[in-house]
């Protein structure tokens, strides 16, 4: 029992410490890559959103009004 508690404590401590890692400004090359942009494919995003709000009848879609009939 004691060992298990120790193991949990060590695991939690490791997780907490690993959460401190930060990306320095000069290390942001990967984050700045074009492929990381959410709007890199406007047509693809438009089609995906159309399918999304057509399917999600209950919610009305992602920031789009309507009942999800798929007609708009």
């Amino acid at each position: 029992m004691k060992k298990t508690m120790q193991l949990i404590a060590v695991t939690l401590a490791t997780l907490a410490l690993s959460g401190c890692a930060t990306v320095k400004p000069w290390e942001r090359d990967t984050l700045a890559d074009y492929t990381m942009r959410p709007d890199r494919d406007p047509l693809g995003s438009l089609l995906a959103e159309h399918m999304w709000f057509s399917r999600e009848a209950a919610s009305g879609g992602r920031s789009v009004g309507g009942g999800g009939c798929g007609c708009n």
Partner: protein
Amino acid sequence: MASRLAPCHAGDSVGIGEVFPDLAKFELEGKLPGDLNGKVILIDFWATWCAPCKESFPVLEKLHHDYAKRGLVILAISVDRDKKKVASYLNKKPVSFSVLRDVTQKLVARTNIKTMPTTFIVDQQGKVRFLHNGFHAKKTERQYIEEIEQLLKNNKPSNGP
């Protein structure tokens, strides 16, 4: 464990009034200008993936043309990991001032800059006199000119009486 902890600590940084680290002690790729003693040095940390950094290059080029003869040295230090990207960018948009690359990123880590780009303006004694976080077009350009003029006033005229 120590390496895990490292990012949590506020690392060393170089601030206004402090002596800028000796560039020769870092493994910088590229040719460091020979005599930097007694010169006003503008040190710009930049990268090819950083849009405002690239936006500042025409301004730095203009400053180089206007002030190099009066004793200003511009050092643009790239923090890119990929050497080819730097070469490719400079082929497309060549510049007259010195461009180096901080291969090991030890210098940039030592200065612990907060933004990209970050520009240090160092006086004739090697002390950081001005520090710019980011590049804000005309506003930053005006500040660069005012600060460089202020520092170059301390230079003795080379062909004076």
